[in-house]
């Protein structure tokens, strides 16, 4: 009996120790202080540590789909993206490394360096906010691999379906203003970001991701160093306290937790810039064909695409009732000029209303009223055409080894009874 008593006591003590040790790091993980954390019930392990519930951890809608939990990769479903400005609860999460902990915004520094900077400079967050004019833009950010799940033969990586895209409202300072404040040499070609997230292997010499963009993109009005998303501090999982935001380009250019931007005199060669990462064959290849690294080209502007966000697929309606559909369309650096839908698998197309974008690189909202001639199974297909006259394909676009840039038409199933 005495043994049981001693055993129980030791178990309690051990729990207590583990609890105290994890409380501080836990607070940073969930991005908020645990009020009364020290009074937490004995034997109670914080949910996020014991059995992580990503929906609570990141304030996500329960219908979001977890593709990967180490690193965290979570996507939306089309009907969750119905809002004109995507709320945090429906924004996909893409991580290459481990989510950082212990962020202290007061001591956060952004360094501008590189071969092509005139004067290496460092700014605090407060300096960035006070020194430079602030701007707010709605920006479409889509993962380069959105739609990867459909490629055949299958492409390597997280098997995104259609929910790795969002258009939130971002507030920050122009990257251009900051780069120009430090000074840009004439030989500048590219910028590369560096951030504090750790590599999955925990190797401190490796960066999880360090991508960038050519100078012309870096110097655009809409390319921001953002500290607010939808009017509030950026949530930790989306890059708190500072995120590079480059709308219309693969989301991997929009580096999270950024603490250094290098102005390079060559194409940036950081992690996930080289090899096959965020690259497609420079010349089109047959499905499954091997492509050498040197024949792969960096993805820049994303292709034209659209999503039907209402109704959710699977709607059953009564014969004679019209169906109102709506959604969003975007076209990378370009604008969407035409939006159509088809209920006969592309035999005929009807025009949708399409709004102008709120600002350049924001997605555009479309709507239409669909009438079905008779009862039966239908699919409503949506097709956007960009300002160069290039439309979404109905079948999969060119196969590529990593399964990027699938902009095939989105469709929903409808039954008319």
């Amino acid at each position, binding site marked *: 009996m005495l043994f*049981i*008593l001693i055993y129980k006591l030791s178990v309690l003590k051990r729990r207590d120790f583990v609890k105290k040790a994890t409380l501080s790091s836990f607070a940073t993980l969930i991005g908020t202080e645990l009020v009364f954390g020290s009074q937490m019930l004995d034997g109670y392990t914080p949910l996020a540590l014991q059995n992580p519930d990503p929906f609570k951890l990141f304030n996500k809608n329960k219908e979001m789909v977890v593709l*990967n939990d180490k*690193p965290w990769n979570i996507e939306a479903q089309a009907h969750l993206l119905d809002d004109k400005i995507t709320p945090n609860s429906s924004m996909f999460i893409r991580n290459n490394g481990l989510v950082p902990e212990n962020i202290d915004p007061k001591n956060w520094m952004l360094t501008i360096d590189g071969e092509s900077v005139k004067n290496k400079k460092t700014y605090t967050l407060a300096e960035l906010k006070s020194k430079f004019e602030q701007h707010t833009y709605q920006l479409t950010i889509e993962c380069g691999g959105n739609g990867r799940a459909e*490629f*055949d033969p299958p492409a390597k990586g997280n098997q995104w379906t259609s929910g790795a895209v969002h258009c939130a409202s971002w507030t920050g300072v122009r990257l251009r203003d900051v780069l120009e404040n430090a000074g840009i040499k004439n030989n500048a070609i590219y910028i590369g970001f560096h951030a504090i997230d750790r590599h999955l292997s925990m190797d401190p010499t490796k960066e999880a991701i360090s991508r960038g963009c050519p100078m012309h993109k870096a110097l655009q009005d809409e390319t921001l160093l953002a500290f607010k998303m939808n009017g509030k501090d950026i949530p930790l999982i989306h890059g708190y306290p500072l995120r590079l935001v480059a709308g219309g380009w693969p989301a991997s250019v929009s580096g999270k937790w950024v603490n250094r931007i290098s102005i390079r005199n060559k194409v940036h060669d950081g992690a996930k810039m080289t090899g096959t990462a965020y690259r497609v064959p420079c010349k089109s290849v047959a499905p499954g064909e091997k492509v050498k690294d040197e024949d792969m080209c960096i993805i820049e502007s994303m292709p034209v695409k659209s999503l039907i966000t209402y109704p959710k697929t699977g709607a059953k309606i009564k014969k004679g009732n019209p*169906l109102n559909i709506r959604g969003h369309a975007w076209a990378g650096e370009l604008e969407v000029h035409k939006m159509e839908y088809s209920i006969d698998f592309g035999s005929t197309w009807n025009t949708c209303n399409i709004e102008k974008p709120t600002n350049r690189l924001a997605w555009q909202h479309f709507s239409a009223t669909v009438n079905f001639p008779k009862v039966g199974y239908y699919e409503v297909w949506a097709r956007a055409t960009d300002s160069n006259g290039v439309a979404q394909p109905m079948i999969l676009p060119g196969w590529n080894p990593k399964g990027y840039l699938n902009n095939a038409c989105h469709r929903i199933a409808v*039954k008319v009874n």
Partner: protein
Amino acid sequence: MTKEEIFRAHVSKVYRLLMLLFALFVITGGGLIYYMFNPGFFDFKSKSETVVSVPLDLDEDRIENGIHLRTGLADAVGLMVVVNNCTNCHSAKLVIQNRMSAERWNTTIKWMQETQNLWDLGGNQEIIVNYLVTNYPPKAKGRRMALTDIDWYELED
């Protein structure tokens, strides 16, 4: 009152006292024994044992319905080699959702060794790749699949 009656009264008083003492002893003793089994019983601030039950020695490699619960991987030849070599840096979810041929898995392993600090797998590489292509073979999808798993619902407008 006779002497004998007074004596009897004294004896019964002592008897009652002894019984009371005995009862107290039984209650205290019983309480102590109970406390030894349930040391948290008198600690009214601590509710841990009743709020959350913490399984102390759950088998972390438990398998149910052919699935390795901790990782979600299929129970088949090579399972533990895959668990021990392929779920340290990333989740098994990344493994399960990727369906590749043996050749492409070998290329992927080489890439992980060159860039992601994966160690030399030695003879385990064949076991791992065999496990993957047997249990997670690629599925033909063509240029566009039919819509499946549709969750039908009545749309009231």
